[in-house]
């Protein structure tokens, strides 16, 4: 007997859905789809990385040169301005923030920029933002090598390095969740770009990137809702956790990373839900 199976080009070409009480099954199918197309994800990640450095003389070296120059320039800046901030704290903050910032920026074009693929072939659309976040993860990990090299030269006290996989997983989930929402939104609303730049600016200052978290924790003058928003922001926990792992920063503790992990997972679930709901119309809009 030949193997007969239903080819359901992404989420099946069925009209009305049978309700959402089977979202668990949908989720399992989604993971199955993604696993089946892992080769495609790999090729897309490769493509994204290749295109980023296409036509540049130094090519892939920019991945390493970027953070290197970032460290140099900030060290110059800090010594000249005598800004009261430790360079290792600043650098770990900025590099980990950049992972999110790059994902958000690229998410606008994850679907819209691949219109030729979306309108010409059927595959699980989620692969596009997923591959985008993965290629940014590769970039992020490479720049972290530079940062670790710098920290070694600096002779800092490394802390709970065993937490790194969990921290990176948390940030990956957050980046993917937010990227899913923005990549889908940009298909329908071209205002997304402008909204995002506002969100990012606010988010940046709500996260201890260019200041240590101690600055906020020691200050009790904020209204309660600002504090709640500040600590529910998963990036607060993620950035602090990186500092905990690399610099033995005392604050704010592992429980706080767990909170960030939970909130990031909620972002991911919301992202998946939004994406799943809207992807059927991508082909019509593009």
């Amino acid at each position, binding site marked *: 007997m030949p193997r*007969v*199976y*239903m*080819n*359901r*080009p*992404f*989420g099946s*070409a*069925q*009209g*009305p859905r049978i309700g959402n009480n089977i979202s668990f099954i949908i989720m399992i199918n989604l993971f199955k789809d993604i696993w*089946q*197309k892992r*080769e*495609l994800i*790999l*090729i*897309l990640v490769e*493509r994204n990385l*290749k*295109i980023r450095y*296409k036509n540049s003389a130094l090519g892939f070296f920019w991945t390493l040169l970027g953070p290197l120059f970032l460290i140099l320039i900030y060290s110059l800046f800090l010594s000249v301005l005598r800004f009261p901030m430790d360079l290792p704290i600043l650098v770990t903050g900025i590099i980990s923030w950049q992972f999110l910032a790059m994902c958000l920026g690229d998410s606008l074009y994850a679907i819209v920029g*691949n219109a*030729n*693929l*979306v*309108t*010409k*072939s*059927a*595959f699980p659309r989620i692969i596009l933002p997923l591959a985008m976040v993965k290629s940014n993860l590769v970039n992020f990990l490479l720049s972290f090598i530079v940062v670790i090299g710098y920290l070694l030269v600096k002779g800092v006290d490394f802390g709970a390095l065993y937490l790194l996989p969990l921290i990176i997983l948390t940030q990956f989930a957050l980046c993917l969740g937010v990227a899913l929402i923005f990549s889908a939104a940009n298909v*329908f*609303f*071209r*205002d997304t770009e402008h909204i995002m730049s506002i969100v990012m600016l606010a988010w940046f200052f709500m996260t201890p990137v260019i200041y240590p978290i101690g600055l906020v924790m020691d200050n009790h003058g904020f209204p309660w809702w600002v504090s709640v928003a500040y600590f529910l922001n998963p990036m607060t926990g993620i950035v602090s956790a990186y500092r905990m792992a690399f610099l033995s920063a005392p604050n704010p503790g592992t429980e706080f990373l767990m909170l960030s992990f939970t909130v990031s997972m909620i972002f991911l679930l919301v992202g998946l839900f939004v994406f799943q709901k809207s992807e*059927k*119309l991508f*082909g*019509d809009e593009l």
Partner: protein
Amino acid sequence: MDSDKIVVKQMSKKFRLRNSGSSSLKAAVMDMVIPGKRSKREDFWALKDINFTVKSGETLGIIGSNGAGKSTLLSLLAGTKTPTEGSIETRGTISSLLELGAGFHPELTGRENVFLAGAIMGLTRKQMNERFDAIVDFAGIEKFIDQPVKHYSSGMYVRLGFAVAVEVDPDILLIDEVLSVGDIDFQRKCIKKMNSFREQGKTMLIISHDLHTIQSISDKILFLEQGEVIGMGDPDDIINNYESHSREDASSSLQREWGTGEVTLTGVKFSNADGVSQDKFNAGEAVTIEISYKASCAITNPVFGFGIADAEGHLVHGSNTQIENFDTGTINGDGSVVLNISDLALASGNYLFSFSVHSDDHTVNYHRLDNHYSIGVNNPKRFEGSIYLPTKWEKTVNNE
């Protein structure tokens, strides 16, 4: 049933037409804030209540004029769009070549794009390596395979797209208008490939405006018009149906009718040598045209005329009873005149026939029907222009 590869049931597709895309967020917010007062959006049904089944090993041709919904139907089957109502079921892997050139990325080389397309189909790198040579060979672009596809000519682009779509060995192949691009050589290669595809018992859906090819390659033809199925079945029947449809459409815009009305032309019947009424003739065939008239009073020596125009309305030939020295005598009441054309020496195409009746001295036009009758002509001889003149060639050799 297992042998049904594609089952489409009561499927409809609606598109939303927006007046301006930029205000869509504003519109969406307004819809949320002010319920009941929905922003004005026009709906457009691209496909309406489509039902058909394609069995394993069948080739289905899809025809219809521009905007009939052919490409939308194919993208729904490919899964890049989702039906608004009804369902589409497909069994097996689908490979598609929609609207020229699979989803190639312009910055990537031909090679990289081939592997990307393979991965989309779910093939592993190893499987693609095995097929790679065959793909490059079929597309005939060995020299350019490592160049970014943005430097490719449109022909190379389509050739590579077709090669990939076919060589990934799908169960179902969907092809949108590939035959009209590329040179004759490539078209022949495509048709050969599609034929071998058929012989392997695979299922194919093809859109083409090249009626001749689609007629020869399809087992069945689906005729779409304005999003609805006009007919589906035997290729010859459906193509005939389609041709008379498009002839009617073409003539309607050029039709004119006027006259004083003392005589009216009540009907025109075209028939072949066997007296069978038809609207499509082969070149060289004898055509008999019976023109019926009704005269409200006695008219002496009325002149009956006819004109033949090409599909654009340019006159190809025209004549009348006076030029041919045919004496019509006096007419009163109902009657008919018969025009015999012994050899319809026209090039292949559609022609619009006009008929008229006017007074002996050309001062009164009783009735004129311009471009009212559309007739198809099939001519195997491919000469230039519309009318064929019998010609003979000779050769003389001058010895020095």
